[in-house]
């Protein structure tokens, strides 16, 4: 009986939390700073939301929930991967909950949809996944804690040119980041004397790649470059293996999205030797990363963190540091200014925020899939230091 009453009270409290949270905060001496995390927790992109939320929560668990004398409250919302929902939730978080930061955004369209809202409301938004270059140019309140596709792609073209790849076919998902990746790949490879024979685009909402892979195979290039959003990577790689692309003498390369740590173990031995370029691998060799991976697994039922998990973690870190720097001032413009030029230590290595573009500058690693301690990992063997997005002016 007691329990049920408590439950009822909890539900009622939840329902009325929106209007009353404000009064509560002022009643208690300690002020609350709210952070909205808009993640995609249902639908095909659900794994990205799970990683992001876990990363953000882990940072709060490791570093406490008090910054500059203020209590941090994380509000998590599911946008189902639909842009007009992301926008409505962003608007509600700003207007009702008066959040100091927005964060999340699993796909580029979702981030673009909130651009006018955050510009109008002057609320900083931390991008924890979406990887199209142009996003940060759409609002002066975007700051990126993840990566951009051109930034990840250029290093692999360097590696490809050095390793005798002359012709290549690219296969990408047909949306913002995919186009960015294919353009950067062509630009990078052709600047180094290679040639992109054909650029194939597959629809974003389509898990079936057989026909596209067959076309790539028929063209017999030296290498096949792949990019799809990480949650789709598992099914793409299974089909790459089924089609026998590697057996046909075509080297499969790509950005780290296709050998996503979250799904790598399920792809099987056929992906061993696959070469990708990316900013994060769970196997990255540093004490900070070892602790991060161990804590992440312990808190999430042995789930391995991937680049989205680390971006959620670092996004939270950025917001904490910004609040420290402004001494708890939650003025949006001041917070963005505080983040410009910030340099932070992360499980991925050191990264910084470019003061001119508010985009991330970080090391990009060249990795190879190998079996280590009985599991598949991306083992880093080369690095390009401090890569900026090459397409920003």
């Amino acid at each position: 009986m007691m329990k049920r009453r408590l439950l009822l009270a909890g539900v009622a409290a939840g329902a009325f939390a929106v209007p009353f949270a404000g009064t509560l905060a002022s009643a208690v001496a300690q002020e609350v700073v709210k952070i909205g995390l808009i993640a995609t927790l249902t639908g095909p992109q659900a794994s990205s939301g799970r990683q992001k939320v876990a990363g953000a929560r882990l940072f709060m668990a490791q570093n406490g929930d008090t910054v500059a004398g203020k209590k941090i409250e994380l509000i998590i919302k599911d946008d189902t991967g639909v842009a007009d929902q992301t926008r409505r939730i962003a608007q509600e978080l700003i207007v009702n909950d008066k959040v100091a930061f927005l964060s999340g955004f699993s796909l580029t369209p979702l981030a673009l949809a909130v651009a006018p809202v955050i510009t109008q409301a002057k609320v900083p938004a931390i991008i924890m996944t979406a990887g199209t270059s142009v996003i940060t140019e759409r609002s002066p309140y975007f700051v990126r804690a993840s990566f951009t596709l051109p930034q990840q792609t250029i290093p692999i073209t360097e590696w490809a040119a050095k390793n005798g790849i002359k012709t290549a076919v690219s296969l990408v998902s047909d949306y913002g980041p995919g186009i960015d990746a294919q353009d950067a790949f062509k630009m990078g490879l052709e600047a180094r004397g290679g040639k992109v024979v054909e650029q194939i685009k597959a629809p974003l909402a389509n898990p079936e790649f057989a026909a596209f892979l067959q076309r790539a195979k028929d063209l017999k290039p030296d290498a096949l470059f792949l990019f799809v959003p990480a949650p789709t990577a598992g099914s793409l790689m299974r089909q790459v293996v089924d089609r026998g692309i590697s057996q046909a003498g075509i080297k499969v390369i790509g950005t780290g999205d296709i050998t996503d740590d979250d799904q790598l173990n399920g792809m099987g031995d056929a992906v061993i030797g696959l070469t990708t370029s990316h900013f994060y691998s769970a196997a990255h060799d540093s004490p900070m990363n070892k602790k991060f991976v161990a804590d992440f697994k312990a808190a999430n039922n042995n789930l391995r963190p991937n680049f989205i998990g680390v971006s959620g973690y670092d996004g939270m870190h950025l917001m904490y540091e910004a609040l420290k720097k402004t001494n708890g001032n939650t003025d949006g413009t001041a917070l963005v200014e505080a983040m410009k030029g910030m340099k932070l230590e992360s499980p991925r290595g050191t990264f910084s925020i470019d003061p001119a573009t508010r985009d991330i500058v970080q090391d990009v690693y060249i990795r190879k899939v190998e079996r280590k301690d009985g599991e598949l990992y991306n083992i880093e063997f080369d690095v390009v230091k401090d890569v900026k997005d090459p397409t920003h002016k």
Partner: protein
Amino acid sequence: MSAVTSENLRPIGTPSEQLVAAARWRWFEFLFWGIAILCGLSMFAPMLGFNVPIIPSKMMLMSEILILGLLALSIDLCLGYAGLVTLGQGAFFGIGAYTAGLLAKHGAGVAPLSDPILGLLAAGLVAGFVGFATSFLVLRGSDLTRLMVTLGVALIVEELVNKLKDITGGSDGLQGVMSSPILGIWEFDLFGKTAFWYTLIVVFVCFWFCRRLVNSSYGYSLRAIKGNALRARAIGVPVNARLIQVYTLAAAIAGIAGGLLAQTTQFASPDMVAFHRSADSLLMVIFGGAGYLYGGLIGSVVFRIMQDFLSNITPQYWLFWVGVVLVLLVLFVRNGIIGLLSAAVSRSKGAGK
């Protein structure tokens, strides 16, 4: 509430008196729209010193509910009155959204072109035109074929939106939509207040038009077609013409709903044409009860509030609970929420006698 439809009314009088009686506004209709207006008025409460919980902070959600309700209403017109099953209403919704969005984007600053009301009319016209063009496909075949044909049209539109990147922005959505003030006076605000009143008025006007229509002799001819198309033809109802007209009209209304969403959120994306849009709104009609006009509206209110409530409690597993409620409702309640209410009312009336 046995008086919800004219079908279960048994008034005495000449047929024309019966028609007039059936078209009369009833208390629960005043109640419904009264509540909607009260919800809107609650936004002024804080200025007068009252504190109304929740509602004023949910203006955006309420506008969205009304818009989805209008989309559901357009389906109800097809399904509940003419008996046309459609799974592709999302296509017209999307066409309307992109039409209004593109007009707002490219017409920005050009005074008459960028006016939201003109944008809505254009959205309705374009969607209605596409509806008319595809209505001939819908005439062929019966229910199952119609489901397939309407679904097919929706898929084609979705793929077009995806492929015509230069116009629609492809998967990234239509960027840079800036809605101008309504009639050059009322600006859209961040709180969604203007958006709510604007939406409420447009939805009411569309609803009032549909209400007039279904209570006219024209509306009765639609019901006759739903009842038995062969007999309707035998008594002289031009069945095909009526179906084309109602399908076109429903498409235009769906287009207006889409235009409203694009204008109030200043955004259009392929999600607006997607299959789940059509499926969700069909669900709302079934949820609320088909053939009452109010079914879609009430269905969308309950459906979206339930969604919002559950996804706030459990952002990861709310879809599961929505599914459970839907299964229970279909299993145990006939004719949706309105059916449930009217059964309850007639039972209490019976007990009172």
